């Protein structure tokens, strides 16, 4: 029997593909029709073929712990997620506004700190944050841009409203999966893909290169751009090498670079060669042992001095972490209003700051209903999902919050939207989110697509790959 959606139940969640009546949403009509027209077992065979292709292509991440067979493919579901044109137009507008404001915020925080002086944000909250970098105060970054590459996590609630869950302005990863998922889906569902008029994401590497070249110091006709990686044992190494390959630039490790005569050079077989722009995929802490953590062996000693002198560009700029601090996030509506004089287009998820006494009491009294997050953690670590937690876990978090309230925020447990996922021989709904990528160069560009992450465990709300999440291709319709 061919697979269909007749028994598929949206269970009172917002489903991205199927309406509560069981009929596909308008944008998903072609896709659903096509999947139902495939003959017996075909979709399962195509799912398997897609997984085998990824394994052979080595699109894997490393699982630490055991010796051999430590590589797994990032779980991938064959049914794409569809974003209709009007929804995308809204998301795109919202993201551009957000990035514009966040960049102005960063420039202000590291210069005049007007927003603190005007008491829009408590100064103490910024200056005490571990992601605030005193080393960056007074830094004039190339073209005034701090956050060149951002990945913003969006979710959709039961009523269909999109919310920003968090901004990632440090070294957001995952864009390589967007591009690879697309390659695989074009091969596995070519007819539905073509008929659905999906917007292309394939020019991302070219646009990224343009964004990076734009930052090069003046008077350099063809700047040398490199991607700086912590090395092949980093879990995102595949992406680093993929992006370097697609842009046609060198992938370097810290030990390949050396500061000499006031410039950054790379060691080549024909001597030292000057480097103008570094797309670094190493955290601030590790990029320069002279400026940040002295024990870092991944970075380049003296890099920050060259940067300060405008002789090399870094993307993203160091210090951007303060803008995605989860406590700063709660001030985003004020930040947008302050710098742009506009109302924020894409809302935040309502958030309780535990540093505030009143809010803290509310959080402590409602731990079984809320999602609690550490402000400086990512990847789904340091997190309590209230409705899915035990009494012991709640007691443990209550203690953590009391001990260090600045470190925690809490949000209501949202009913994340779902999409159908192939489970054995049928489709089931699973919760998803969406991470679009934004490039800030000559202007702000939002990649029409993004990484749709899926919580593959039934009922789970945690989409992170380190916690059993997978991904889907994201089809933005034109």
């Amino acid at each position, binding site marked *: 029997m061919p697979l269909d959606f007749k028994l598929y139940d949206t269970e009172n969640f917002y489903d991205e593909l199927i309406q509560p009546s069981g009929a596909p949403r308008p944008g998903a009509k072609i896709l659903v029709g096509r999947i139902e027209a495939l003959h017996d077992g075909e979709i399962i065979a195509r799912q398997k073929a897609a997984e085998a292709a990824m394994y052979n292509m080595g699109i894997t991440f490393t699982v630490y712990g055991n010796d051999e067979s430590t590589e797994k493919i990032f779980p991938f579901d064959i049914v794409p997620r569809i974003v209709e044109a009007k929804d995308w137009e809204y998301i795109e507008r919202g993201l551009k506004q957000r990035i514009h404001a966040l960049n102005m915020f960063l420039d202000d925080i590291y210069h005049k700190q007007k927003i603190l002086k005007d008491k829009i944000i408590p100064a103490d909250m910024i200056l005490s944050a571990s992601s605030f970098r005193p080393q960056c105060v007074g830094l004039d970054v190339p073209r005034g841009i701090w956050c060149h590459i951002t990945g913003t996590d969006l979710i959709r609630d039961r009523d269909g409203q999109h919310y920003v869950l968090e901004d990632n302005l440090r070294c957001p990863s995952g864009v390589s999966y967007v591009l690879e998922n697309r390659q695989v889906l074009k091969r596995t569902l070519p007819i539905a893909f073509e008929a659905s008029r999906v917007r292309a994401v394939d020019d991302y590497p070219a646009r990224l290169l343009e964004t990076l070249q734009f930052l090069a110091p003046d008077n350099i006709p063809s700047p040398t751009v490199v991607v700086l990686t912590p090395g092949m044992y980093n879990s995102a190494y595949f992406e680093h090498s993929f992006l370097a390959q697609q842009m046609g630039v*060198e992938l370097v490790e810290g030990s*390949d670079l050396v500061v000499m005569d006031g410039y950054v*050079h790379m060691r080549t077989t024909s001597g030292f060669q000057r480097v103008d722009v570094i797309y670094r995929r190493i955290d601030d802490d590790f990029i320069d042992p002279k400026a940040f953590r002295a024990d870092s062996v991944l970075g380049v000693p003296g890099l920050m001095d060259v940067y300060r002198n405008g002789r090399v560009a870094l993307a993203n700029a160091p210090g951007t972490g303060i803008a995605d601090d989860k406590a700063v996030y709660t001030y985003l509506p004020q930040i947008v209003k302050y710098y742009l004089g506009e109302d924020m287009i894409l809302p935040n998820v309502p958030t309780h700051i535990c540093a505030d006494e009143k809010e803290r009491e509310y959080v402590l009294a409602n731990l079984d209903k809320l999602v609690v997050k550490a402000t400086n953690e990512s990847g789904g670590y340091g997190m309590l999902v209230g409705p899915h937690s035990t009494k012991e876990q709640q007691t443990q978090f209550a203690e953590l919050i009391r001990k260090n309230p600045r470190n925690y925020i809490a949000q209501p447990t949202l009913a994340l939207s779902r999409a159908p996922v192939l489970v054995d021989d049928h489709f089931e709904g699973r919760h998803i989110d969406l991470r679009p990528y934004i490039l800030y160069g000559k202007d702000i560009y939002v990649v029409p697509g993004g990484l749709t992450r899926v919580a593959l465990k039934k009922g789970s709300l945690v989409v992170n790959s380190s916690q059993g999440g997978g991904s889907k291709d994201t089809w933005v319709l034109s």
Partner: protein
Amino acid sequence: MLSRVANSIYWMSRYLERAENVARFIGVNLNLSLDMPGEYGEQWGPLVNITGDGEFFTKRYGETTRENVLHFLTFDRDNPNSILSCVRHARENARSVREIISSEMWEQANHFYLMVKDAAANKSSLENPHDFYQNVKTESHLFDGITEATMSHGEAWHFLQMGELLERADKTSRILDVKYFILLPDQHVLGAAIDNIQWSALLKSASALEMYRKHSKQITPSKVAEFLLLNKDFPRSVQSCLRRATNSLRAITGSQQDDFSNVIERRLGKLLADLNYTQIDEIISCGLHEFLDGLQTRLNKIDDAIFESYFTLRPLTGRSAT
């Protein structure tokens, strides 16, 4: 190109060539033992000596049984020169230069590794060893073919060639040594017929039998040695490997023929000249094994020089900014 990248590419191809040649050693021995009259038994000890890992082997395994030696050379993770280790290193190197090589090359390196890894996990994979070792050779040939057809023949490719050719030159000389070690105990006992069969088996292991036949009709020890060492046309002969390695080196340095700009070119040029102007009779009368030994030492020195000249670039002291 980056020194680190050049290093990785050089070693990627060296490791793959090494894995292929370990399969060839084992192949020659499997062939030889099949053809050996029963009373001489199988000789597996010499194989571990040839790869230079004799001491390490004895410590870990003791007896040189067929099973022990095959495991040591094929699947032993702690032996850095086992096929599994070589292919794993090669693939790690390929992964670290994925942006430099073609994606087809990477996929083949990955495929090669997965094949060997799966075989290592499967107890029955050495029940028919010929098939497995044949597969190893085929995977390696595929990689070479894909490389030839998909990678620009620029600087990175020349480093890749140097790694492959220097490794092959070394290993061809060691394949000749297999026969030397096996013959050593009872040089005069074996009849000419057996001897002939053994030399054929050896040529076969270097994929050289058919090409040798076109070159000389009769199989004689000195002609075989001449073919594998000095022949100018056969792509696995030492002379041919070193000549092409020299060409790649010149493409990297830009030096003119008969000139040199660094110590690698000097050492490699000298060694090639020696091969070009040496006759096989001289080699045999001075001792084939001694000659091979000397050759291997000189190849090691060339490798050292490559490392020094290209892979370790240090900033001049006093110039680095503070």
